[in-house]
């Protein structure tokens, strides 16, 4: 329960600085509630206490001291979850290609526009993952999009290790994969050695207990165990050990692997690596990977689609243009979808919004329910944070978004975004948006 340890300071901080807000319960009266877990409710009420959802239902008694947000005629649903995005950091990748010991937590900047834009677009949870131009690119973290300091935002510190199968511009795929295997093999040997030592030690202890040796000796043995001592200064040994530690937890299945596949051929390698090293793999797919849809479907691994969902491809032989609709292909292969967004300048406008990606999937045959799940609960499950976020259920974090209408419609606005029971975005207070849409107002 790493989450506990990080949220307690958050709560303490919250209590000290905003005592009233934390103590006062919040009630949202919604025209329509889409809880994702369960059927949508008309005229429902959501009760929030201490930053957690207390109850969701119809005709609930609203406590007398509760602050009430009247969202009549509006739609309330869980905040969106951005499942893979390097934009929360100041720089997506290290120049060194093999840096499993690095964590994005050290690079997250809460004041980045990415977080502000996320709140404006209803995204309340984001997985900050190192970029794709790397080999072993460091550890991802799942954060809330609201907070003043990084530590306040963290939901899951060790969310996974980023691995990319696409070699740099001049390198060969063969050496890239050989190097990757070498690192994985090294870690596997270390794991094996550690397991053997543990077993020997256990055997030794049992033996000693049986022989009834005195306890002091046993204690000394235990201290001499091969685990790195905390507080060691940063030297060669410690960085190598940290590097190994991250890889070991990857191989022990304590951490998942975000494996980036640029081409369809990489998918096959990713699946092979997964089987060979028993990894907990999440496939991060490039545009071209739709061609390996059957292999992906057979592997049953969770996938994150690239931000370009519909594109034209020219047949090199006939010159015929073919329209490739990625979500349609994956849906037909019965692969559950999740989406990436991209806020870089060369992205199309639509692919900057999670709801737009989901709406595109609906356009090509995915049901609305599934599409909504693919931007809330499903990414939360993939990231392993579904006990906290992703749906509106009692006990989960009060991260939700109030929309002016149907979530997948173009003319729907995010009215309010709420994270941990606090309003972190309010369209009425959004001066930037107002300035953009109605410059004459002021």
């Amino acid at each position: 329960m790493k989450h506990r340890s990080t949220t307690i300071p958050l709560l303490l901080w919250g209590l000290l600085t905003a005592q009233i807000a934390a103590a006062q319960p919040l009630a949202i009266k919604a025209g329509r509630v889409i809880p994702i877990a369960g059927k949508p409710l008309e005229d429902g009420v959501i009760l929030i206490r201490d930053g957690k959802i207390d109850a969701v239902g119809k005709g609930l008694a609203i406590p007398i001291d509760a602050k009430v947000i009247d969202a009549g005629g509006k739609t309330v649903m869980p905040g969106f979850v951005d499942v893979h995005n390097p934009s929360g950091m100041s720089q997506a990748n290290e120049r060194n290609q093999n840096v499993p010991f690095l964590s994005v937590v050290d690079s997250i900047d809460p004041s980045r526009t990415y977080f502000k834009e996320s709140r404006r677009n209803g995204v309340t949870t984001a997985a900050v993952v190192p970029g794709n131009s790397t080999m072993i690119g460091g550890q991802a973290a799942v954060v809330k999009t609201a907070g003043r300091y990084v530590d306040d935002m963290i939901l899951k510190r060790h969310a996974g290790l980023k691995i990319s199968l696409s070699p740099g511009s001049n390198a060969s795929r063969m050496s890239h994969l050989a190097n990757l295997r070498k690192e994985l093999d090294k870690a596997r040997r270390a794991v094996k050695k550690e397991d053997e030592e543990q077993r020997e030690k256990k055997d030794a202890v049992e033996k000693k207990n049986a022989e009834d040796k005195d306890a002091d000796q046993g204690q000394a043995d235990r201290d001499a165990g091969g685990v790195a001592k905390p507080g060691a200064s940063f030297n060669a040994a410690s960085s190598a050990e940290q590097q190994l530690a991250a890889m070991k937890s990857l191989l022990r299945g304590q951490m998942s692997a975000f494996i980036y596949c640029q081409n369809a051929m990489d998918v096959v390698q990713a699946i092979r690596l997964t089987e060979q090293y028993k990894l907990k793999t999440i496939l991060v797919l490039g545009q071209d990977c739709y061609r390996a849809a059957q292999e992906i479907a057979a592997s049953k691994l969770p996938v994150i689609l690239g931000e370009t969902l519909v594109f034209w491809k020219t047949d090199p032989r006939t010159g015929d243009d073919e329209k490739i609709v990625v979500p349609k292909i994956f849906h037909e292969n019965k692969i559950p979808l999740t989406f990436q967004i991209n806020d870089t300048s060369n992205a199309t406008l639509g692919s900057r919004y999670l709801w737009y990606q989901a709406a595109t999937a609906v356009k090509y045959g995915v049901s609305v329910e599934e599409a909504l799940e693919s931007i809330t609960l499903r990414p939360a499950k993939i990231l392993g944070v579904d006990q906290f976020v992703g749906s509106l259920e009692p006990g989960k974090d009060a991260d939700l978004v109030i929309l002016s209408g149907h979530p997948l419609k173009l003319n729907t606005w995010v009215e309010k975004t709420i994270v941990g029971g606090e309003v972190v975005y309010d369209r009425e207070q959004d001066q930037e948006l107002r300035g953009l849409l109605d410059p004459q107002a002021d």
Partner: protein
Amino acid sequence: MKLNHCNWWSHALQGAAIWCLASCVWSGGAAGVLAATVDAYFAGQIWTGTEVVLDDAVLVVEGGRIVEVGSRDDVSLPAGTRLHELGEAVIIPGLVVAETGLAGGSRDGPETIAPQLKAIDGFDFYADFHRLLAGGVTTVQISPGSNRLMPGQGAVVKLGGRSIDERTLADAESLRVLLSSASRNPPTIYEPPVGAVSVDRPLEPSKRQLGRSLASAVAALRATFLAAEKGVPAENQDPDERLLLRTVADYRENRRTVRVTASQLAEVRAAVRVAKQFGLRILLVDPLQLGAYTRYPEQWAPMVEGVILNASIRPGQINNRPVPDGRRAPPPLPWENARKLVDAGMRVAIHAADDSDVHEILFLAGLFQQGGLSQREVLRMLTEWPAELLGVDDRVGSLRAGKDADFVVLSDQPFQTRTRILATYVSGQRHFDRDISEKSTLVRAAAVYDGMGQVIQDAAVLVQGGLIRGVGRDVSAPLDAESRQFPGGVIVPGFIDLHTGIGIGGPLTGTISVQTKLGDQLDSGDPAVAVARQGGVTTVLFGSTTSSPTPLVAFKLGDTLRVLRDPAAIRFKLDGNLTLTAPALKRTLTSAKAYADAWRRYDEQFKAYQEQKKAYAVALAKYNEAKKAAEAKAAEKKKEDEAAKKKSSEAGKTADEKPTEDKPDRQQGDGKPEEKSSSSESAGAPDAKKPASDDAKPEADAELKEPTKPKEPTKPKASSSLEPYRALFAGKIPALVEANRPAELREAVRIFRDEFMLKLVIAGGNDAMRVADLLASKEVAVATGPMLVRTVDRRLVNLPQVLANRQIPFAFQSRATTGVSGLPLAVTYSVGKGLAATDALNGLTANAARLLSLEQRLGQIAVGKEADLVVLSGPPFELSSRVLAVMIDGRWVHEEEQTR
């Protein structure tokens, strides 16, 4: 090409045994399901890749594997087998290329010795190998890098097949070593360690690598194998080194193939020595100079499994061979080496000099026939031998029962210049077909309206090579026809618009003279074209709307605009003050007619002249012959006369003897000139002629008049500005006369129909209902539009309907640009106001084509017509009907975006 009977019979027997077993199993099980997967390919000849060549044979394939190969008569096929008759074609095994760089081999890692790298990691199974398959290549070896001493391990993959596992024949086939000069430039390695630099962890200098000369390369190779021989380091040692040595040791101890690239004699020698020292089994690649090795195979044969020769020549390119310098012999040609190696009992394979030539390997291999190698030996170098050398001969390399069904269909014997590859099959699936451009499409819909008033329910249209090849409920179609289903859809012929302003990417301004070839101005990039065809319009006329005579070009709205006829019509305009315009028009037509008539007369005269010329040639021949005969006769007569004179003078002396001798004498004398003439003319003729000339001499004299040579008629003066009128006056193209008011219409009929007797189509014809009797009686057609329904004198007039009821043929014109797509909608409105849908469709399709004299090609859905189809979501001219797809000349040019 003799059959090796013993071998073949044992095969056939084995096959038959398997067959019996198999058919027993089938008869017990679900025969129908299983039987459907059996394919039999009948060919004129099957080269199994081994010694056997079967004539008139069949290859039986099931589930991607070969079940049986045998003579046509000896193989019994289960019921339900799909039969493929390939005629005289020749089947050979799929080609195996023993070395390629298809795994991205030019990108090497930095290390000189990196045996742990695997080529299979760099191979893209999803890449498009169409070009290679089209060249008959089905299996390739893929090499790791090509610029390091030991760049890694190769692999063997198939270029097609159902799954990646099935396509991977060997993921670690051989350990590659390059002793040639390509590997002698290793980079220096600089690898800073992870973490901060400190006194304890200084920056280490960059690492230099061995192998800048052959000596150091061989030394490095020896050191590596020696280290591996000593044993792999213990677990706790450097893991990198361990992995490296473990790989090398595996190849050495298990005597797995080490592939050594060595071209110069010194390199070859080094390779053989290293192999001898460490007991390696090597594959020698690219040897250029073999020196004495070919003469003493026992010196190296134990170490060398086989040789892979570089074709050295790039197809279609010229390469310079070294200048002979007298001291050194030029390197032998690859086929010379091949001949010697094969004679020495070595297995030989061929690879292309460059990866971009792999698809031409059949051509390159054909060159090896120059070395005196037989077709069969060359084929072995591309099939059986490489498969054995790569260790994949259990799957590929020959056509035998149990092997993968990888085969190539050739039009003729292999290794002949003109032999084409017709198809390539990998694991029983066809991967290439030369007829790809001739691919046919079967379009099926709920109904087909043929444009002539007939409706076929639940029918299909077969389109092949841009033409309609079948229409009906049940249409014959090739097996591989692409099928398009439009449930509930309706197929109608492509619509024709008799006047538009699209095709040149902008407006057509100014006066266009009648000789202008508008077809040359057409711009396929005109965006209005794509919009226009969305409405279902496939053919249009294009031209100006000025009042002076102007040409109209007919073209199709395909992706490239295709001109049908230029000009397809000449457009005139009758409006304004008729007392002025009509005489002016008449003047133009009169001079045009004079011109056209002059040319018509010339044409007639010329035709007559040609016939006369022919007759003259015959007459002249007759004359010459008769002349010769006459001359001969004259000469004879002279002789006779002389003889007679003589006779008369000698009559007293020998009067009794002469008559008997006279006859043969005369015959001889006659024979000589006759023979001469009969050699140039037909025999027998002189015989026939002779009596005639003998009997009726005066007549013959009359015949002997020399025939007069016919005079060639003089050509009229050509005038480009009047040239287009010739087609008009010949009735090949219509005159499209814009006339609206009754007076204009009457004048148009009077001038064009009555006076000049042209094919007249009234354009516009707003008041045509007022002169309907005249138009009907003179059988004048009308191209109505753009306004079809108007209110005249407070009454609604639906002109097409009026024309239809008066039996006046009509078509439609939009005179629009992007609005061309709205023409069917305008007609729909007319249908809503009383026009029959059948008449409307007729006017948009078949009638329009007839008015343009293009009915042989367009306007109907019938066999032989051009494939311009419009698929509607419902019956034509229903408000709810949308255009689902448009096909022009057999190609889909517009499809409704599937939004929902």
